[in-house]
């Protein structure tokens, strides 16, 4: 397949994701309502009880609702990554997955295209969220809105890759509730999204260790540093490594000769 044909294929996948997104515009609203509630209600309440000391990348004391912004951005990416997983399971039940997988394009390319398309949609949501936060009075350094973009892409691809990997293991749409309970919530709460790790350590060193093993923590920190025009090198490395591992696992899982989904799905086929 020529690069031009592959590019057209990617555009087609992206276009379909956009169309589906527009048809399900409530998804867009819901994806924004969640972090906004955290920002307007939770963070506002905690502003007076939780002080955040001067730790990098901050150069001065900040309010809690500013601290929580990177975590809420990562939350959007996390939920969208898992939504991508739901979308894959939905496609499988609807049969659309067969249409995708019988394309003559390499399967890894199809999966990456699907992943990149849903990540691009996530980025749009993140920027709308940042715009609302800006209007609310939480303003980042102007350059931060630009420097955060590559980290959003990297983190979005990592979390989307995790969703893709999970989608290969979920047999039915109904099992998505399990993903919510066992993946999304633990990942979000055992991270630096809501509290700095030194605060977590004060409460429980074990919890701090758990947080530091959570790739989501590194996505949050990568975004946090990038929002202030700084580069979190170690976080970037961890996020990139996890992204490669998750996407690699998903590609293997969706490979008909190696994949676990061969066993999972074939049962219904005879």
């Amino acid at each position, binding site marked *: *397949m*020529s690069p*031009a*044909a*592959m590019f*057209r*294929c990617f*555009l*087609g*996948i992206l*276009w*379909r994701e956009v*169309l*589906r997104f527009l*048809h*399900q515009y409530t998804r867009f609203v819901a994806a924004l309502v969640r972090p906004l509630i955290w920002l307007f209600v939770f963070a506002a309440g905690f502003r007076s009880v939780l002080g955040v000391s001067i730790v990098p990348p901050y150069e001065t004391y900040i309010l809690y609702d500013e601290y929580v912004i990177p975590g809420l951005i990562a939350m959007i990416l996390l939920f969208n990554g898992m939504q991508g997983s739901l979308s894959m399971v939905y496609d499988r039940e*609807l*049969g*659309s997955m*067969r*249409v*995708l*997988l*019988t*394309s*003559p*394009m*390499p399967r890894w390319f*199809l999966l990456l295209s699907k992943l990149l398309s849903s990540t691009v949609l996530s980025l749009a949501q993140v920027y709308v969220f940042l715009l609302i936060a800006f209007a609310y009075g939480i303003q980042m350094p102007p350059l931060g809105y630009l420097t955060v973009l590559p980290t959003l892409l990297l983190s979005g691809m990592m979390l989307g890759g995790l969703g893709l990997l999970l989608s290969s293991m979920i047999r039915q749409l109904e099992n998505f509730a399990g993903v919510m309970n066992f993946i999304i919530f633990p990942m979000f709460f055992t991270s630096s999204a809501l509290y700095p790790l030194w605060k977590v350590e004060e409460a429980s060193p074990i919890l701090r260790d758990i947080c530091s093993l959570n790739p989501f923590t590194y996505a949050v920190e990568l975004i946090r540093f990038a929002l202030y025009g700084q580069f979190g090198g170690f976080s970037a490395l961890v996020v990139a490594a996890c992204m490669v591992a998750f996407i690699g696992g998903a590609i293997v899982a969706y*490979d*008909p*000769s*190696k994949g676990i989904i*061969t*066993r999972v*799905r*074939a*049962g219904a*086929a*005879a």
Partner: protein
Amino acid sequence: MADLAHLPARSTASAADALTVGGLTHRIGERVILQDVALTVPAGRLVTLLGPNGAGKTTLLSLVTRLYAAQQGSIAVFGHDVRKESSAALSMMGVVFQQRAIDPDLTARQNLAYHAALHGLPGKVARARIAAELERMNLAKDADRKIRTLSGGESRRIEIARALLHNPRLLLCDEATVGLDVRSRADILSDVRGLVRDRGMAVLWATHLIDEVGPDDFVIILHRGRVQRQGRAAEIAAALGADGLNDAFRRVTEAAA
């Protein structure tokens, strides 16, 4: 067994044949779904894969389309091994799945455009082919309606149009008429026969409905994962001393039970 010379029991891949399956065995756990299946679909011919529910037809087509990997045996499309040259093989085949595989929230045109993109067709070519296929199917007026507002027969015809967009030389239809009324079934079958006649397309038509088989059609009877008989419908019936294909099918499936 009423085998024909060009439908050998153990096939060898040839670029002249649209589909060649040889020694295909597939298990799910301990359960054998397909056992040493060998068949050939010659270029430009319609072959009916006839079998009751659970015979292994969908698994066979899923292996041909690389949705699952064959555990044992070989599959080639116009000489291209689906495992080693999957891209070439997949670009030569169009598929109509048993389960509806079309996005109900998109319009007919959007679904077709999506498929065209998956095959890397340039926009201009895609638009022209979509218009031509919709016209041929008498669905041009419904092009911008969402699939969920179309009847079962109409959406099925959209799926057939979609399978033809990239000009495949082999069409695989898995129970393409299931759930449709008699008129829609007849229309779809007639359209597919027209593709063989007018375009020289090869078709593997998987069904459990015996009334879709004509007396001169090539038939492969698949039951319990094995090819039980293959040949012309009339010849199979004659070889078994049966009163037509219906009776022959009953005897074959009962004997193998």
